[in-house]
């Protein structure tokens, strides 16, 4: 399985993401510039965290017009795996691959800490290695992570079991329905604000992000 991590101007979690796959999981991953037009030959693509284009206008709004974006859309259509973390999640909503939007945290503060998530859906290619309803500790670091969608969209997300991760105990940003991560209807596109790539080795403070990477790689082998 070959994975691409897209590097936008202002990405800053691309190296963490690369290392999580390459060093920790021994997976085949490559950096791909936002200037490229093709993702041919890749089985999965990751949009990493950071501040693409300085978060100008809205988070993820400008990145959506990069050369690489049509190739990401194509992969999503083909059922290949697309993962967006933090700014990557924001880009996925701006692209329309995931519904809703990420708005400024209710506190107006940039929140950087480790939070508890509940794994709500273990049937996605990203979460099969978690236990149903498992509580995991994953770091967050964002100023615009408050998930918003209309009531109708929220109802649809809940009915289709598209809420994959939910904040547990404390909601750090005002996200509706305590949403921390959602997938598309088909389940092959996941967006989440928390950073699983920052929780893959004990020395980082925890390994609760590791099952996500293992799930993704396992799904790739089976595909």
């Amino acid at each position, binding site marked *: 399985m070959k994975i691409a991590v897209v590097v936008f101007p202002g990405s800053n979690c691309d190296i963490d993401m690369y290392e999580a796959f390459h060093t920790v999981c021994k997976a085949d991953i490559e950096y791909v510039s936002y200037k490229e037009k093709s993702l041919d030959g890749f089985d999965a693509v990751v949009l990493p965290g950071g501040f693409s284009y300085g978060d100008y*206008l*809205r988070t993820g*709004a400008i990145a959506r*017009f990069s050369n690489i974006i049509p190739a990401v859309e194509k992969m999503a259509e083909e059922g290949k795996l697309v993962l967006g973390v933090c700014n990557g999640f924001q880009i996925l*909503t*701006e692209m329309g691959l995931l*519904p*809703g*939007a990420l*708005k*400024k*945290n*209710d*506190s*107006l503060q940039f929140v950087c800490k480790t939070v508890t998530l509940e794994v709500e859906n273990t049937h996605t290619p990203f979460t099969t290695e978690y236990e149903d309803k498992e509580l995991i500790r994953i770091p967050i670091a964002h100023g615009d992570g408050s998930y*918003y*969608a*209309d009531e109708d969209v929220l109802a649809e997300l809940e009915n289709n079991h598209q809420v994959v991760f939910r904040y547990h105990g404390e909601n750090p940003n*005002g996200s509706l329905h305590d949403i921390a991560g959602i997938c598309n209807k088909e389940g092959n596109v996941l967006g989440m604000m928390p950073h699983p790539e920052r929780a893959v080795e004990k020395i980082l403070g925890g390994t609760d992000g590791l099952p996500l990477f293992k799930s993704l790689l396992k799904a790739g082998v089976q595909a």
Partner: protein
Amino acid sequence: MTTVRIYVTYKPSVFDPQGAAITDSVNSLGHDEVKKIVVGKFFDITLDEDNLDKVKADVKDIAESLLVNFNMETYKIKVLEENA
């Protein structure tokens, strides 16, 4: 030339944390009569075009394809200057 201002704000149904914080601050100044402050942003767009119908169509396209995220935002357009 025509200059148009596009105002972008959260939809009324969306909580505006900056507006709420600023409203609290204004109230704490003693202005109890202030009930609500909405924070948004504006874009002044100058176009090499005098036909107002064309200008409005162009600006609508720009707003709807980039400047506004309809999941959470709404917008208004105001013509500032014509033939400036």
